[in-house]
């Protein structure tokens, strides 16, 4: 019999019961909650008179609606404020292990604070009403986004009704060149397999490039699994995982730490495990990536030209290219490094951790943003990241270069708060989605790494970061 994959092991260790058609009741260890996708679930609980199954599994915090400046003014938009206050009252009524309300010193993006305080651990099942829950797979957890009905189901039963999906291994071998980051690995992979390439699969990332990534880098790669269509992405835990977790507030302590580590090292795909699909990419073949269209798969290495729909034979794809060029205000065959920008956004659950900010600060240190950049902003992923960055003087580097240094939150990744693009504005963004209207109605988003966004801020247009090193 063939060995088991990491996903097989995580799945099997959480099956409460299985129906004859393969539908399982899966036990959930960690439930992350934010304000946008939870209100209707708590309301459903109240209407049905149901109790929360295990409040100790809940880690919650508002992030999507919270402003990133003028915190003394509170939340000015009354609808946003009501949603955040509704989370406050729901947590008060139903309970949680961790809750950081708006303006708490540790508040931040839910996918940044989970790992940061040790509430995301290897071997766990982690869910959240948010598709970027795949981030937590970086720790060797089975983590994925769910809808609000499922949020309610987990609150009431601590389980999900689910069927096992197929196994995909994405192996990034060799090594990355200077200036090439985890973000470029993820975007290049999406460019290769497409935004539906991972649909119906759980992805395990492996290979020497992944092993050499920091935990922050692994989180960036797993975060973007959903943009390849896979609900979950994961990396087997190793010494880096242990080193990252040791001593964190909610990480196991004492004897439990030793027991936990002994278990975690078993969480790897067996040598004879069989994957339903395998994708292999050489790290040396990956250049810094820039998306040019309105889907993350519409991505090219810097140095390329915007595609010409005339060269596409598939009619649906040709229409997609034409629609994207029209929306993005781009002409076919334009060199990507000639695309001029209006705004720069460094932040989001994809790229707002300390390592991302250090990398961007290194690029802008001692320089000024270009005259054509209307706004360049850095939004740290959490209060913890913000304080760490300030202790290292990164805030001053950004401010001196002309960036704004903001309070933590999801911010302009999805523009639910006041941070957004105006119609027609063009942004180099370290976030995860370049969909139409994502960063504001009519806004035009190009996804890049923090280093590439920083370099674009200085030049006023995209540049190959490798020429700046």
């Amino acid at each position, binding site marked *: 019999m063939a060995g088991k994959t990491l996903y097989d092991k995580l799945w099997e260790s959480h099956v409460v019961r299985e129906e004859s058609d393969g539908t399982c009741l899966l*036990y959930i*260890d960690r439930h992350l909650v934010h304000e946008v996708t939870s209100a209707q679930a708590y309301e459903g609980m109240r209407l049905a008179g149901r109790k929360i199954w*295990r409040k*100790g599994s809940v880690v919650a915090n508002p992030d999507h609606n919270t402003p990133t400046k003028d915190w003394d003014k509170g939340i000015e938009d009354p609808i946003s404020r*009501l949603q955040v206050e509704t989370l406050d009252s729901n947590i008060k009524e139903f309970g949680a292990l961790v809750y950081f309300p708006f303006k708490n010193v540790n508040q931040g993006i839910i996918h940044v604070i989970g790992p940061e305080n040790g509430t995301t651990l290897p071997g766990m099942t982690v869910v959240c009403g948010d598709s970027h829950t795949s981030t937590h797979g970086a720790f060797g957890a089975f983590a994925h986004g769910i809808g609000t009905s499922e949020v309610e189901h987990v609150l009431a039963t601590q389980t999900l009704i689910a069927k096992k999906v197929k196994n995909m291994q994405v192996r990034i071998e060799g090594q990355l060149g200077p200036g090439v980051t985890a973000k470029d690995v993820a975007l290049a992979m999406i460019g290769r397999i497409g935004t539906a390439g991972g649909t119906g699969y759980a992805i395990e990332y492996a290979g020497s490039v992944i092993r050499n990534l920091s935990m922050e880098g692994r989180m960036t790669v797993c975060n973007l699994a959903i943009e390849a269509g896979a609900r979950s992405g994961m990396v087997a835990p190793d010494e880096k995982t242990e080193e990252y977790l040791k001593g964190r507030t909610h990480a196991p302590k004492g004897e439990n730490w030793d027991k936990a580590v002994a278990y975690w090292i078993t969480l790897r795909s067996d040598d004879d495990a069989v994957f339903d699909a395998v994708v292999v990419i050489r790290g040396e073949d990956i250049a810094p990536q820039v998306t040019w269209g309105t889907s993350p798969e519409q991505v090219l290495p810097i140095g390329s030209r915007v595609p010409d729909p005339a060269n596409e034979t598939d009619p649906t794809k040709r229409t997609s290219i034409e629609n994207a060029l029209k929306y993005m205000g781009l002409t076919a065959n334009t060199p990507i490094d000639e695309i001029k920008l209006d705004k720069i956004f460094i932040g989001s659950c994809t790229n707002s951790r300390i390592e991302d900010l250090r990398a961007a600060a290194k690029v802008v240190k001692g320089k000024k943003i270009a005259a054509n950049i209307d706004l360049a902003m850095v939004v740290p992923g959490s209060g913890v990241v913000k304080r760490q960055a300030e202790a290292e003087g990164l805030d001053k580097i950004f401010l001196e270069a002309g960036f704004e240094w903001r309070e933590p939150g999801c911010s302009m990744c999805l523009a639910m708060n006041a941070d957004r693009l105006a119609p027609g504005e063009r942004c180099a963004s370290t976030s995860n989605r370049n969909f139409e209207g994502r960063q504001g109605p009519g806004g035009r988003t190009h996804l890049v790494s923090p280093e590439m966004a920083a370099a674009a801020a200085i030049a006023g247009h995209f540049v190959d970061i490798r020429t700046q090193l």
Partner: protein
Amino acid sequence: MKAFRQIDGLVCPLDRANVDTDAIIPKQFLKSIKRTGFGPYLFDEWRYTNHGEPGMDCSTRPLNKDFMLNQPRYRNAQIMLARDNFGCGSSREHAPWAIEDYGFQVIIAPSFADIFFGNCYKNGILPIVAASEMVDKLFKDCVATDGYRLKVDLEAQTVILPSGESFTFDITPHRKHCLLNGLDEIGLTLQHADEIRAFEAKHKATQPWLFE
């Protein structure tokens, strides 16, 4: 949840691949703390020519006449015809809430994004995966024929075309049972509460740190 058995419904085509949930229901409408009232904002940025905000009276907003929902021939459609990877992106259940609130009960596409696909079943919407060639044919027929309708029978897992031609579709027995009977999954799961408790006790004994 409403039960779904069968419909004979008007079909509306949406000829775009990779339709994401940000397009289905833009973020400003996610600030609502209710489950209802999203229908008027379905595909807001494509459907209206001005910018929509929650609470707006949509009956007076300027329409994008080219958009399929605004064409008189597709008014009151109950079946949406879509392209590959429909519902990709954000996990927001507001997307199926908006689709259901508008009046769609069935979506037929060559493929769906996973989270959206699961969310549909929780809201009485039947997502049907059909072969690409069949979807191409349906698009062609639908655009060519005013008042084009399809019959969808969940019990028989069959879609019948006006020509009498038909095709079958897959659905798990669990999802079919819940949809046919409009069942509340939480109630069903809680019938297994003892098993969940037993699992939890065993899990706690082997990995106590998960419960600290």
